[in-house]
């Protein structure tokens, strides 16, 4: 094989290309379609006389209609969240009882009986074990409910209809309609949502989808939203309405996140990521009855356990860090207290406090440990005795006890609202940041995607705090 002969083939092809003219591509495509039509004519028959009942198109007419499309979407989101909130309560407290009230003291007494030094016992059991136990108790139940429900909707074929409904909004904000799908994936996990943006061909629109995916409230943040909403927002209204109020405020935050997603997409497409919206075909697949048990099984194995494992892997070192910064002293204050004091001024401006800011820094690896970190740091800073030593992360048996601690830490309704807002608008977790880097291969865009939400979070919480304090 020599180079010359191949050149000769290429020359011949160039020559022939001139001869056959411009219509080659169209001619070939038409030829393929004609062949396909011939083949089908001979081998495929539809039994006549049996008119097919078009259930699919009947459902589509309703769920993608201008009037009902959006209300149905919010209704479904509401039902999924409501089932998650209500359903997760009991297993969560059972797990907390087992892991924190039974196993933890047993481990402690076991450690002291073998004469483990206090620092090792503290580091391992009060730091690492408690962080992991908390994450399991708080995250496993809602995930085990949320993911299967979401997967059932996905298998049923509802997601492309969501994309269809939202397409116009995406188009107006200069983004790709398929971003609706990646956004929905983000409600489960932002890292998964970022990977899913591969379905968007145009690099410009894909970047927009990656940068704004963080505005989808991920499952690491749902529990925070739900807990804070239940404690503070639910308490403002009469108790019979409290769970409805909590639910509505969580949905409100999720919808606000979508609003920020559209707004940021629009701003990006008008400034640094200018360009035309590309057109695309989205097939509305037939509805397929999900295979319930199989879906339940795969979503538990594939999503719940994998995400939970990731959370545990990240929570363990974070627990260790919390214990260390609370037990290493510079002068007469621990590193944690020193950090909290230095963040307090800035935190106050944002209607938050030093504890929350420090908790978010410690929780960069995993959003789901924000609340336990906040509780632990609050106890330490306010000097309330939870019965445990410094730097011990613990679960409180009841929401009332959690509320008492937070109120003792100087929390108000403003703190709660701004925490919910900040939980929506802050940097993605480290897994997501790493995934963004892997997908974009660009330090610049990774930094933009990481910093942009925090800046937005600072601005929004600052504004809310200032306006709140005016009244």
């Amino acid at each position, binding site marked *: 094989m020599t180079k010359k002969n191949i050149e000769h083939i290429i020359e011949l092809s160039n020559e022939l290309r001139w001869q056959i003219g411009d219509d080659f591509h169209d001619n070939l495509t038409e030829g393929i379609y004609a062949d396909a039509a011939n083949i089908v004519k001979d081998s*495929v028959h539809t039994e006549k006389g049996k008119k097919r009942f078009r259930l699919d198109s009947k459902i589509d007419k309703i769920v993608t209609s201008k009037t009902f499309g959006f209300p149905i979407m919010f209704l479904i989101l509401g039902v999924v969240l409501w089932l998650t909130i209500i359903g997760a309560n009991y297993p969560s407290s059972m797990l907390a009882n087992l892991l924190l009230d039974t196993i933890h003291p047993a481990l402690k007494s076991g450690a002291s009986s073998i004469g483990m030094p206090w620092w090792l016992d503290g580091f391992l059991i009060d730091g690492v074990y408690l962080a992991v136990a908390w994450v399991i108790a708080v995250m496993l139940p809602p995930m085990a409910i949320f993911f299967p429900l979401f*997967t059932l909707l996905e298998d049923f074929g509802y997601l492309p209809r969501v994309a269809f409904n939202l397409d116009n909004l995406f188009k107006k904000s200069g983004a790709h309609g398929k971003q609706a*799908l990646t956004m929905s994936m983000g409600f489960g996990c932002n890292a998964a949502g970022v990977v899913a943006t591969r379905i968007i061909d145009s690099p410009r629109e894909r970047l927009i989808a990656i940068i704004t995916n963080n505005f989808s409230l991920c499952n690491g943040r749902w529990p925070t939203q739900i807990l804070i909403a239940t404690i503070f927002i639910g308490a403002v209204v009469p108790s019979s309405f409290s769970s409805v109020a909590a639910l509505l405020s969580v949905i409100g935050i999720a919808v606000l996140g979508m609003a920020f997603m559209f707004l940021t997409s629009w701003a990006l497409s008008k400034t640094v990521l200018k360009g035309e919206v590309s057109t695309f075909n989205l097939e509305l697949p037939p509805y397929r009855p999900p295979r319930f048990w199989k879906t339940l099984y795969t979503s538990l194995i594939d999503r719940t356990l994998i995400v939970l494992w990731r959370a545990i892997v990240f929570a363990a070192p974070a627990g260790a860090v919390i214990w260390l910064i609370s037990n290493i002293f510079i002068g007469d204050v621990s590193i944690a207290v020193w950090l909290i004091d230095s963040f307090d001024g800035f935190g106050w401006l944002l209607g938050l406090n030093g504890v929350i800011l420090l908790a978010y820094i410690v929780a960069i690896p995993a959003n789901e440990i924000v609340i336990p970190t906040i509780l632990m740091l609050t106890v330490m800073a306010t000097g309330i005795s939870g019965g445990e030593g410094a730097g011990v992360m613990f679960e409180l048996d009841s929401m009332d006890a959690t509320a008492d601690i937070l109120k003792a830490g100087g929390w108000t309704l403003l703190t709660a609202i701004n925490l919910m807002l900040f939980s929506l608008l802050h940097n993605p977790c480290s897994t997501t940041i790493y995934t963004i880097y892997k997908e974009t291969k660009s330090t610049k865009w990774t930094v933009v995607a990481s910093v942009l939400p925090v800046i937005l979070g600072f601005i929004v919480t600052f504004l809310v705090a200032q306006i709140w304090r005016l009244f």
Partner: protein
Amino acid sequence: MDTKAVKSACETCAHFNAEGMKKLGINTENFDFVVALAGNPNTGKSTVFNALTGLRQHTGNWPGKTVTRAEGGFQYNEQKYKLVDLPGTYSLLSTSTDEEVARDFLLFGRPDVTVIVADANRLERNLNLVLQILEITDKAVLCLNLMDEAKRNNIVIDQRTLARDLGIPVVATSARYNEGVPELIQTISEVANGTIICKPHRIKNVPPNIEKAVKKLSAEIEKEFPGISNSRWIAFRLLEGDSQIIEALKTGELV
């Protein structure tokens, strides 16, 4: 109908062969054959993939779910197969990322068998891709999936005629319910081992001037690369001015 009797008849059939089948999950070491899984979006490729490998690669009812290649393996009659799940595409002629991943694998990955998964309900549209793949490879199996839905829609497909027209074996499946999967595996192994020889359909309805040009060019290609199976497809691509194919031809990747 006595279902019990039917079941035992199935079990004695060579196609069933449950003992010969072993799902290998992600273990794809030392395989004997590479099997590619191609098809339009949302035809159930990932479901077929899971049924063959025993993996639980997440499936979802929306087009474009599989964004990267997924790999898995199975063992059948002491032979190991590596299965590669390609992203779903409608065509191989344009240049989106999905199509490139799928096309490059069919072209450069040289699968021993390509299983083309098609939606039995939308066969005509699916054939567009099937016919393009048959230009590239001559060892293929058409997996006519979603037969359960086709049945509900009163669609009847004459598989023999279809297989004869396409020149490749056709297997009807409802992969969600594992129906037809044993037959699919048996057919894959027969194609891989050369028991079934495919005579794939080549695109016929092209204007005479193009057909002449393609013939001339593919004759030259065959002269240069004796034994090449997809000279016609390379000729199509060269006539289109596909720079990637020109490059591959230069570097010798295509042979």
